[in-house]
């Protein structure tokens, strides 16, 4: 059987489907009438992506300016040349994915889960390539403050990103929140790379890189909780 024949059969069967009741359509149209007013369309994607990148850069720089650029000073030229452009590219990718996840019918680059996995692997590979030192001395006492700081700076990034994207989130809010959480986590990592002078590979791989998955998980959990509440409320 040829594909064209299957097409014909599908078309024939589709035409045989019962029509929608006109009364139902009139009811739907009438229900929209009271709230019919002009709306302002959502911003262009490029503008939203640029705004998100600016937010990440601003939060990371503001955090490092306040706490000190010790990490940047401790890094050598190769470290700086590799880390910050890579972070900028990853932030751009995460921002694009976030924007596209909030707008229905957008062309998608990668899924939010694939984005998170890809960025985590990329960070581990980058840090593993650049840094050496796997001593476990003071691993936890020095690591917890870094993790907390990274997450602390992810919060304002996430809030500002939500503000920028608040008119979107029209379809899969969990996927959109995961992508936004990933983006916020990257801002936290950028701030840590600027500020933290501990260049031990184990410290960075464990405490810096884990900011991204934790932040993404927090975003997904928050969206899931809100979606569940809305479901239970019957909305």
């Amino acid at each position, binding site marked *: 059987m040829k594909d*064209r024949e299957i097409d014909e059969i599908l078309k024939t069967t589709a035409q045989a489907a019962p029509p929608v009741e006109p009364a139902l*359509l009139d009811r739907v*149209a009438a229900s*929209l009438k009271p709230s019919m007013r*002009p709306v*302002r369309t959502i911003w262009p994607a490029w503008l939203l992506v640029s705004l998100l990148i600016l937010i990440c850069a601003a939060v990371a720089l503001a955090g490092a300016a306040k706490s000190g650029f010790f990490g940047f000073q401790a890094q050598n030229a190769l470290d700086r040349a590799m880390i910050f452009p890579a972070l900028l590219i990853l932030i751009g990718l995460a921002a694009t994915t976030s924007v596209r996840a909030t707008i229905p*019918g957008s062309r998608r680059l990668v899924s939010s889960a694939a984005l998170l996995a890809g960025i985590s692997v990329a960070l581990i590979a980058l840090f593993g390539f650049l840094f050496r030192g796997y001593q476990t001395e003071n691993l936890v006492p020095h690591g917890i403050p870094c993790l907390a*700081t990274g997450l602390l*700076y992810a919060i304002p990034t996430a809030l500002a990103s939500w503000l920028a994207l608040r008119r979107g989130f029209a379809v899969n809010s969990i996927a959109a929140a995961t992508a936004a959480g990933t983006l916020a986590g990257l801002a936290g990592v950028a701030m840590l790379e600027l500020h933290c002078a501990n260049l031990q590979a184990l410290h960075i791989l464990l405490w810096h890189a884990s900011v991204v998955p934790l932040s993404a998980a927090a975003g997904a959990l928050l969206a899931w909780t809100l979606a569940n509440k809305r479901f239970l409320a019957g909305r």
Partner: protein
Amino acid sequence: MRAPPQPGSSPKDPGIVIGVLFVWAGWKVTANVPYFFAAPGDATVTFRPRPSNRSRWHFYERLTHGAAMTPFDGASARASTGAAPGPNSGHNSGNDWVRSLGPMYMDKDLETLMARYQQGDHSAATALIHRLSPQLHRFFIVQFASRGDADDLLQETWLRIHKVRHTYRPGEPVLPWFYAIARHIRVDHYRKAIRTAAREQRLEETHEVASKPAAASKTPDLAALLEPLPNSQREVIEMLKVAGMSLEEVARATSSSVGSVKQKAHRAYERLRERLTAMGLGSDRKGGLS
């Protein structure tokens, strides 16, 4: 020699204060930016401003339109797109006259209607409802919803579309936008049905109440034909072959890649071929994916 290790900042750092200030500034900026980034002639920036923004809004209106806006009657839109006046400019439900002009004109017409809908034109909304509801309804029925469920899902979809109509950007493909929302509504409905079924299981077992009318109300033809396909393949076939969307549009609507859509369509056709051959329809020859 690298600097000695230093722990990161304490969580007590006033980063949250910076964050709050940043959020406040962002709120202020986002309240005003659209006036300056919208293109001249962009008729979508027509929301009613707050009193404090009124003078700026009038300035913007003059800047982009050259004159105060008049209520949209549809005639100017047809004139600007070159589309012929037809029954869909009002409350008519037919769309054959647009189809006869070809898909490009149909998309243009839908875009025009969508733009008018965003401007608050109720007749455009009604025309869209009458134009797109049959295919959205079929989309729900194909997913094995009963007729009643499909009606409910259709209403819910239009309410959601109305709520998020600002997320459609002029110039973007219209159908993927509608289908993405419809698809999301269907997924929500599916989750809700699973939860409801889980809660109602015990009651059914206890009282042994027979409830089979739902199956009887299903549309037998298309739904039965696509029955052996998984949900993902079924929706791809419905959009590609029944609704007549392109691969790119289906990929947008389903948040996947074109390659993934092709693969799903290919697998679905393999299954359909087997099923139709088993039913004794058509020959046994294979063909490429058209």
